[in-house]
C-alpha cells in the first residue's frame, strides 16, 4: 500500500464521520452507542466525542463517552483499574470541551467525573490531586447551574475525603440542597442516593441521630433500598466500618449516569 493510500483512508473516515455529525448529532450518538453494545470501543469513542462536541451540555452523550473510555481501558488492562494514560486522554478531551463551551454546566460536570474515573487507577497521592480537580470542575458546574445532580455529585465527593481534611461538612451542605430540590420534584428512583449520602455525611460529621433519621425517611420512600437497609441494620463500629468501606477512595465509583434519563 502506498503512502498516499495510507493517508487517504483515515481522511475518508474523518469525512464520513463528519458528515454524520453535521446532519444529525443524535444519529452519531446512536452509532456510538451501537458500537458500545458490540464492545467496539475504538469506534465508539470518536463517535461519542463527536456527539458531545456537537451537544456539550448533553449529560447522556458525555456519560456514555466516559463509560466507553472506562470499559476500553479496563478491557485492555484486566488486572488493574485501567491505564492512567487512557483516562488522561479523556480528561484532556473534557478540558478542551469546557474551554470551548465555558457556559456548559454539564460539560464541567462530566469533566469532574472524568477525574473521578481515573482515581482508582492512580497512585495514592495522585488520587488526592484527581479528587481535588474533580471538585473544582463540579464547583464550576454548580456555579453555572445548581442542579440536583451537580449538588449531589459534589456533596457525595466531599464524603470520600478522610475526616482529617474536614470536608464532610461541605458535603452535607450540598446534599441538603439536593434534598430540598428533590422534595419539590416528583419522586425519582435516583433520589434514594441523597437519602443514603446525606445520612453518611451526618454520620461522618458525628451527627448519628440525624443520619439515622434521614436513612429512615429514605427507607420509608424506598423500602427496597439495600443500601438503606444495610445502614439501618448496623450500629456503632460496625456501621462506621461499613461507611468507611463504602467511601474507600480506592474503590471505583459508578459514574454512569444512565439512571437519570432512564427514569425521566
Amino acid at each position, binding site marked *: 500500500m502506498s503512502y498516499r493510500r495510507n493517508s487517504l483512508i483515515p481522511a475518508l473516515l474523518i469525512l464520513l464521520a463528519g458528515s454524520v455529525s453535521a446532519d444529525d448529532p443524535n444519529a452519531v450518538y446512536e452509532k456510538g452507542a451501537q458500537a458500545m453494545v458490540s464492545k467496539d470501543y475504538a469506534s465508539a469513542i470518536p463517535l461519542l466525542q463527536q456527539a458531545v462536541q456537537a451537544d456539550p451540555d448533553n449529560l447522556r452523550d458525555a456519560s456514555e463517552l466516559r463509560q466507553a473510555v472506562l470499559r476500553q481501558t479496563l478491557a485492555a488492562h484486566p*488486572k488493574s483499574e485501567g491505564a492512567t494514560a487512557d483516562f488522561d486522554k479523556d480528561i484532556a478531551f473534557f478540558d478542551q470541551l469546557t474551554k470551548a463551551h465555558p457556559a456548559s454546566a454539564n460539560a464541567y460536570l462530566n469533566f469532574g467525573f472524568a477525574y473521578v474515573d481515573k482515581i482508582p487507577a492512580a*497512585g495514592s497521592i495522585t488520587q488526592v*490531586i484527581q479528587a481535588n480537580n474533580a471538585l473544582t470542575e463540579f464547583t464550576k458546574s454548580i456555579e453555572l447551574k445548581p442542579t440536583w445532580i451537580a449538588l449531589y455529585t459534589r456533596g457525595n465527593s466531599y464524603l470520600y475525603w478522610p475526616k*482529617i481534611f474536614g470536608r464532610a461538612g461541605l458535603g452535607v451542605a450540598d446534599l441538603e440542597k439536593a434534598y430540598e430540590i428533590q422534595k419539590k420534584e416528583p419522586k425519582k428512583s435516583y433520589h434514594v442516593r441523597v437519602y443514603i449520602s446525606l445520612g453518611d455525611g451526618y454520620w461522618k460529621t458525628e451527627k448519628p441521630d440525624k443520619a439515622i433519621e434521614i436513612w429512615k425517611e429514605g427507607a420509608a420512600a424506598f423500602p427496597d433500598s439495600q443500601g438503606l437497609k444495610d445502614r439501618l441494620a448496623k450500629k456503632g463500629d460496625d456501621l462506621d466500618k461499613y461507611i468507611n468501606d463504602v467511601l474507600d477512595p480506592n474503590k471505583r465509583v459508578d459514574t454512569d449516569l444512565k439512571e437519570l434519563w432512564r427514569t425521566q
Partner: protein
Amino acid sequence: MNLRRKGWIALALALPAAVWAIEGIEAKIRFADVTQKAGVQVVHHTRHFKGPTADVLRMFTSGGSSAAVGDYDGDGFDDIFVTDSDSGKPNHLFHNNGNMTFTDVAVAAGVAKGNDPDKIVADALWFDYDNDGREDLLVARFGTPLLYHNEGNGKFKDVTATSGFTKFGNTIAAVAFDYDNDGLLDVMFGNYFKPVNLLDGKDPHVLPNDLDNAVNGGGVTLWHNTGNGHFVDVTEKAGFGKHTGWTLDIGHGDFNNDGYQDVYLACDYGTDRIYFNNGDGTFTEKTETATGFDTRKGMNADVADYDNDGWLDIYVTNITDEYMKECNMLWHNNHDGTFTDVSRETNTCETLWGWSAKFGDFDNDGWKDLFVVDGLRSAGKDNYIPVLVNLITQPGVDFTDARLWPNIGNMSWSGYQKKKMFRNLGGQAFKEISAEAGVDNDKDGRGIGMADFDNDGRLDLYQANADQMPYLYRGVTEGGGNWVQFKLTGTKSNRDAIGARITLKAGGLTQIHEIDGGNGYAGQSTKRAHLGIGKASKVDSVEVHWPSGLVESFDGVQIDKLNKLTEGGGHKQAPWKVAQK
C-alpha cells in the same frame, strides 16, 4: 482477584491443619523492654539544615536511625552498631557484655565519627569484605561512605581512601552479597535523593518530581569486590544504571532457586523494582512480569520463606493511614518468577506509616513471625497532612522545589503509631499480637536489628527510632518450641556465608533460611540462622547450599544449641542447581 491469587488461596486451604504448627506450639510471644537496663538508651538526632529549606530537608532526611548487628570481636555474642545523624553526633558501638548489658566502645574502637558538616550518617553494615574472619564495618552516608577494617584488637582502621568508595551518593541503604559467587562480598547501595549535596543548599530542586511515579531519585550503585580491599563501580555493567527511583531499601535473596542472588528494591514515591541475576555478572529487571508496576511508597524489603514452601517471599511496607490507603505487600513467590501480593489475605496489609519489618520465629514453632515498626513524626497536636495537601493540590506545582513545601514546625505527621507484631499461623495468615507481645510502643520507628543477644534461644529486637531513644526488647516467651542456630563459615564461598541457604528438616516440616547481608530497612540482623523446630526433639537433616555451589549435608546437629558449620566440613551432595531443576 486474579488467577494466581485464587490458586494460592486454594493451595493454602488444602494444607492439612496438622501442618500448620509443629506439634501444636501455642506459646504466647512475649518481649520485655530492657533498654535502660541494657545501657543502650541513646537518643538519635536527625540532621539540622540551614537556610529556607532547612525544615523540609530535615523532615525528608529523617530516615537514618539504624542498627547493625554483628559479632565484631568474635566472642559469641552479637554486638550492635547504632547510627546518629546530626552534625558532630557520634555513632555508637554497643559491645555485648554477655549478660544482656552493653558498653558503648565506639570512640575507643575508632568508629564514632562520620557525621561531618557535609555528610549525614544513614545506615551501617557489618561484613567481612576481606575474608579474614573479622567483621568489618561500612557506614553509609548522604555523601561518601566510610569503610572500617576490623584490626582484631577492638580497633578499626579507616580504609575508605583505598576502598574505591569515592562516589557521592545520598545513601540510605546498604547490603552486602556475592552477586557473582566469586567468594568475595560485593556491596549495593540504595540511594534516596539524586547525587547532590543537600547540605550546601545550592539546588532546591531535590525533592521527588512525582509523588507516585518519581524518577529523579538516586537509584542504586553496585560495587564489585576485587579482592584487594578495593571495590569497583559496576552499576551500569550489571544492569542497574537505568534505575532512577527513590530507593529506600534493598532485599536480596535467591528468589528463583538458581543459586544466584536476586534483588528487590523498595522505592519511595513509586515503583519497586525486581532484578533477577543472570549468573554472568549481570541482572535483568523483571518488574513487569514478576510483580507488576506499583505506585506505592516502598519502605522496606525483607526476605524469608514465611509459608515454608521452599521459595523465598518478600515483605514490603508502604503507607496505610487515615489519609492514604496503600496497603503493604507480602509477595508470595509463585515458583515461576512471579509473585502475588497476599498481604490482605494474610492480615499483614495495614501497619500505618511502615518502616522496617523483620521476619523471625519468635515462639520457635517453625513458622516465621513478623515485626513491623512505623510512625513518621510524633510532635504537637496539629497535623501536617491538611497543610501538605494544600501544596499537593495546587495546579502545576513543582514538587521538586523544596522551597515550596510548607514547614512542618511542631506539627505531627503520622505520629504516635503503635508498632505491629504478627504471629504466623501456619504460613496461611498472621494474627496481630502487638499489645500482648509487649512491643506496641508509639515511637517513630525506623530500623530493626534482630538477634539472640543473650544466647538463650529466643530472638531479641533492637528498634531504632528517629529523634528518640531506641527500644531493646528481650524475648521472654515461655513455653516456646525447641530451636537450632547455625553459624556458617564459608571457605571457598565468602566467609560470612552470605547467600548460603540452609534446608532443615525436623518435626515433619522443611524450612529454608538464607543468610542475608542487611535485608530490612535501616537495619542489619544477626548472620546466625535461627530456626524454631517446635516440639521436635531432633533434627532429621540439614543441608547447606553454599554460594560456591557446593551442597553439603551435616550430621550431629544439636537442638537448642548454636551449631557451627564450615564449608567443606560436611558430606558432599549432588549439585543443588541440578537437583532443583
